[in-house]
């Protein structure tokens, strides 16, 4: 059975008559193998780690730094010679101990000054709403020599929060 099948195939081939060459076997047409589509993970992981390192290195977890700005008195006009238009709001800061919360706040001519700087803006706004005071009323910060710089900046910041436009520093 097998021999007869091969003969049948040979008979179908196009070998020239009388040629010495044996007839070529018919080749079956081969289908192209499907290309495998895959995701190469290695470069992606590589890049991911590189980005991760980049962001870890460049990220800052601390608060950004800014500045509080104020005008300085002009040279030649001493602080005592500056004519204040009308009664300023004088905020006095004292240090009572070495701790962060060891300070006192007093406001001249106004009782019930707040104990914490967080409440000072509201207190200053209350003063500004009284007759004779507004946002242009100068606020003079008077701090003792031993007061921590942090408290002076907090007082300055509170005055800015209250919308005060004229903030000055004075020696105790």
């Amino acid at each position, binding site marked *: 059975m097998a021999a007869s099948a091969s003969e049948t195939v040979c008979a179908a081939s196009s070998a020239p008559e009388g040629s010495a*060459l044996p007839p*070529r076997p018919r080749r079956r047409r081969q289908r192209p193998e499907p290309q495998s589509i895959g995701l190469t993970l290695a*470069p992606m992981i*590589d*890049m991911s780690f*590189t*980005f991760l*390192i*980049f962001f870890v*290195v*460049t990220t800052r977890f601390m*608060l*950004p*730094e*800014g*500045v*509080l*700005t*104020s*005008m*300085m*008195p*002009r*040279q030649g006009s001493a602080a005592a010679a500056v004519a204040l238009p009308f009664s300023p709001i004088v905020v006095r800061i004292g240090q009572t101990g070495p701790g962060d919360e060891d300070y006192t706040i007093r406001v001249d001519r106004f009782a019930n000054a707040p104990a914490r*700087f*967080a409440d000072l*803006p509201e207190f200053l706004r209350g003063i500004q709403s009284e007759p004779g005071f507004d946002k242009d009323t100068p606020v003079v910060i008077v*701090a*003792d*020599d*031993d*007061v*921590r*710089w*942090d*408290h*002076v*900046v*907090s007082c*300055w*910041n*509170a005055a*800015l*929060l209250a919308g005060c436009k004229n903030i000055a*520093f004075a*020696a105790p």
Partner: protein
Amino acid sequence: MRYRRKRSRTSSTLGFSATPLIDLIFTLSIFYMLISRFSTDEQTPMDLPRPHQSQAVVPKMPDRAVINCRPVDGGDLAGHGVVYSVGPNRPEPLAVISDRLAAWKRETPELKVVIRADRRIPYARVRAVMRMLAENAVPVLNVAALVGEGE
């Protein structure tokens, strides 16, 4: 004579792999970022004031001088434990800084000055700097503080 068909060789693909190149570029950039020192050099590490609901803004000051006031390591804050320096320079007496500032003011009249003072130092030490700025006719006082919610 047999009919032979040449077996075709699979041609090797010549391509440009960009991944290692990008890898290297990023690694090098991280390396240079780590070893480089930019303008943050003038920002000597210190504990800056953190006011409640800080009104401090991040400024754009191309021509500026930064005067750092920080406590001496292990020094007595109430006494003479405060040192002054201009940017990343070594600590100097305030009189020397004043002379230097006067020279800069002659070269750059629009020079801005920022005081960076540690929050723990006494006010008298910073007031000395403020007085020095007034003597040098610096028109604007800029004081560094942290931006954002404090306390």
